[in-house]
């Protein structure tokens, strides 16, 4: 290094050996372990997506055979859902920021935190072995009896991988809940918590209460397949619809696992880059909890056409509308936060604005699926694919990238090339819309999901989608390149490059090993920019 002064001791230069990373108990280093492994899984899942889109350029199955195609979309789903989206924001940004944001030295159980990373890696390895020794073709939903009786791919191994990884989520959620309850600095009351902490807390509740149900369900699938215990297969006396109930009892809340942390990130971004505290703090905070709780009661909207009782369907339908209300409240509050703010257009804010637009579309199209009579037509078509990609890619990944850009100077101590970041954000936004908006139309036209071959009249939309996906892919690669470049070459960022308010911006970048030299004493909510504390009601 050619710097004149030796950099102060921080978590990054506190030991360089491999052991200092692989045996670390520092939440910040574990966050980076997650960052690297999650990025690897994202690249792999993205590669599968690329092959899927290339195959769908033409109506015939010419690039790959249907059998291979089925394995591709299954691995794309399994990897993106269980190994990228679910852990992405909580395990990377949450791990890094939660203790700092509440003024703690670390999470409550640092060893457990490291253990959950190893469990994640173990589960990922098992799944990858299943993927590369023949693959799995059940779809990420593992629907019985196809998965238990019909498929002749590596269902047991893939299900075991997901099962194992579930414990990583559970332990992370447990750690976050206990940390939020017991490790807050003096004065950090619940209603002074940053909104990111609220949403992480709500996410952790779903981790704790939802994940075990998918774990036992996948265990039963593996046992039924391996030992012919009949739980779900009607040929053995079981009920395949029961599987769907148990599966979606977790997997619908899992959608909120993906989007709630992104909402927390966007809450932080909108406040910082509008230099203004959030509009309606309590509403934004409690809407996270409301989403987490009501989110547990809506799973049946995945079964409207599965012969579920109509009256059960009615209840699930109205609850699905109800869960949209807190989401709408958040969107309105974020928008209102920008009103009379001091809005800057730096790259993290571009991601936040992109999130607002895409999440709104994703949420509104969710209403189509909650409307029972309309769901009959669009169920299991590309309309659904487009809807949940607007939530998961347009919502969760935009939030993740926005958060990564926002906190990158804190994590690494370095800035990144802002023009490139702006360019990449625009590429992601444009590429995303071009990829997924046509899928709404082709879904309404009737193209079912998971089709390797399709009738020629759907081709024009698939070509548009594939074109968009190429742009989107480039948009994802650019940040990876400049982030790596920035580690060595970018200028130092300083402790608070954005002029943001919050505990994480009061400590050096990168943070010292134990975060705070003295335990901070908190006297007000974060993001109080205006000098006067008068409360004006609009």
């Amino acid at each position, binding site marked *: 290094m050619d710097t004149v002064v030796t950099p102060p001791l921080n978590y990054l230069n506190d030991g360089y050996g491999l052991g200092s990373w692989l045996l670390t108990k520092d939440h910040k280093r574990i966050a980076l372990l997650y960052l690297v492994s999650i990025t690897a899984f994202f690249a792999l899942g993205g590669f599968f997506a690329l092959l899927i889109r290339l195959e769908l350029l033409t109506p015939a199955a010419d690039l790959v055979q*249907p059998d291979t195609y089925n394995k591709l979309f299954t691995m794309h789903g399994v990897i993106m859902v269980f190994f990228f989206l679910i852990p992405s924001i909580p395990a990377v940004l949450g791990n890094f920021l939660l203790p700092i944001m509440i003024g703690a030295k670390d999470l409550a159980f640092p060893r457990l935190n490291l253990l959950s990373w190893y469990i994640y890696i173990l589960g990922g390895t098992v799944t990858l072995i299943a993927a590369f020794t023949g693959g799995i*073709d*059940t779809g990420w939903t593992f*629907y019985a*009896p196809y998965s238990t009786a*019909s498929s002749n791919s590596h269902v047991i191994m893939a299900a075991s991988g997901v099962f194992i990884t579930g414990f990583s989520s559970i332990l992370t959620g447990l750690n976050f809940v206990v940390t939020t309850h017991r490790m807050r600095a003096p004065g950090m009351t619940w209603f002074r918590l940053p909104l990111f902490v609220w949403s992480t807390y709500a996410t952790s509740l779903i981790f704790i209460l939802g994940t075990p149900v998918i774990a036992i369900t996948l265990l039963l699938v593996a046992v039924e397949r391996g030992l012919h215990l009949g739980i779900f297969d009607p040929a053995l*006396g079981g009920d*395949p619809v029961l599987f769907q109930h148990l599966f979606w009892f977790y997997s619908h809340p899992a959608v909120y696992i993906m989007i709630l942390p992104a909402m927390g990130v966007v809450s932080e971004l909108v406040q910082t880059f*509008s230099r*203004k*505290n959030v*509009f*309606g*703090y309590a*509403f934004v905070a409690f809407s996270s909890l409301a989403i987490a709780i009501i989110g547990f009661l809506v799973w049946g909207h995945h079964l*409207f056409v*599965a*012969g579920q009782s*109509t009256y059960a369907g009615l209840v699930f339908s*109205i609850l699905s*509308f109800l869960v949209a209300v807190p989401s*709408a*409240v958040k969107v309105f509050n974020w*928008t209102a936060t920008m*009103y*009379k*703010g*001091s*809005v800057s257009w730096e790259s993290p804010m571009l991601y936040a604005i992109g999130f*607002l637009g895409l999440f*709104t*579309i994703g949420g*509104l*199209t969710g*209403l*189509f699926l*909650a409307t*029972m*009579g309309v769901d*009959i*037509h669009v*169920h*299991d078509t590309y309309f659904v694919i487009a809807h949940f990609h607007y939530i998961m890619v347009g919502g969760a990944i935009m939030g993740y990238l926005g958060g990564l850009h926002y906190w990158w100077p804190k994590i690494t101590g370095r800035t990144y090339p802002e023009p490139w970041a702006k360019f990449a954000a625009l590429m992601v936004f444009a590429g995303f819309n071009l990829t997924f908006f046509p899928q709404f139309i082709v879904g*309404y*036209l*009737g193209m*079912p999901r*998971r*089709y*390797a*071959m*399709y*009738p020629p*009249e759907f081709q*024009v939309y698939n070509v548009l989608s594939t074109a968009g996906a190429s742009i989107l892919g480039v948009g994802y690669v650019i940040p990876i390149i400049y982030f790596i470049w920035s580690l060595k070459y970018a200028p130092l960022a300083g402790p608070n490059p954005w002029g943001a308010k919050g505990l994480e911006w009061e400590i050096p970048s990168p943070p010292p090993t134990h975060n705070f030299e003295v335990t901070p004493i908190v006297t007000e909510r974060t993001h109080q*920019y*205006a000098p006067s504390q008068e409360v*004006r*009601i*609009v």
Partner: protein
Amino acid sequence: MLENLLAPDAASAQAVQVDAAFYFLVAVSAVFAILIAVLVIVFAVKFHRKRPDEVGAPIHGSLPLELLWSLIPFGIMLVMFVWGAWLFFHLTRPPKGSMEVYVVGKQWMWKIEHMGGQREINELHVPVGRPVKLIMGSEDVIHDFFIPAFRVKADVIPGRYNTMWFTAIKPGRYHIFCSQYCGTKHSAMIGWVTAMSPADYQAWLTGKSGGGTLVQSGEKLFQDLSCSTCHTEASSGRGPVLHGLYGKQVTLATGEKIAFDDAYIRESILNPQAKVVAGFQPIMPTFQGLVSEEQLLQLIAYVKSLGTTQADTGAAAGAPGSSSSAAAPAGTKKSGM
């Protein structure tokens, strides 16, 4: 096919109704999406940071606004809910007297059987202007019968029967898709539904007929499998007499009352001990593995015809659906001859 670039054919009575709700949702979504987009862009431009040390105004919130933007969306959603629920009830309750067609899904084809015994594979011929009810079962895994042009779909689940119905209004050929992932050739499990004018349909039925009707095949099976030994009036009362039972309630040995319907007949053939009618010993052997899904459907069609026969000959006043039974027996009888 340029007119089909943005919306699929609307070839059934249901399609028109679904589209109305769909476009209402599109309109509401467009209004809200544009509202948010305009507000975000206007705020981002109008309140763009002018000086590096500028900060936002200290506004903390407003209860009336929060209530406003919680309750108005919720009110609109209630409209969607009621509309969607009404539509769902309508789309999932076939009217009495619908023409019945049996569908069996198997990896990876659709087997269709008409009441007159006409069989098709991956093709379904229906008349225009008449409600058609599909009774669907699966031989292996879960499939899903989807006709985009009619805006109807339903999962086809092994071990149970699902139904769906539609009234075609426009003659033509439309796609049938399997829309529940079912394995390697899922995307090849597609077919065509042909909607024809009633006269053409009659001609098609006549040209296609061969073998016995569904009821005749079922009756033959009923004899061959010796069901008749226990389940007819001549038998020694070892099993319930099936005449006139279909569509009624039966009382089980446990005291429970359940509907004597397709699902119950199926269960009683495959798993006779599960629900035994009160007053009978659980002595019936299982026919699991002895009858195929298609034969099950034939047996059900036969037992069902016994039900209607009784209702006709006995002219039971209180028989369920007797008011609308004028159309139903007509349909079965015609194909029965």
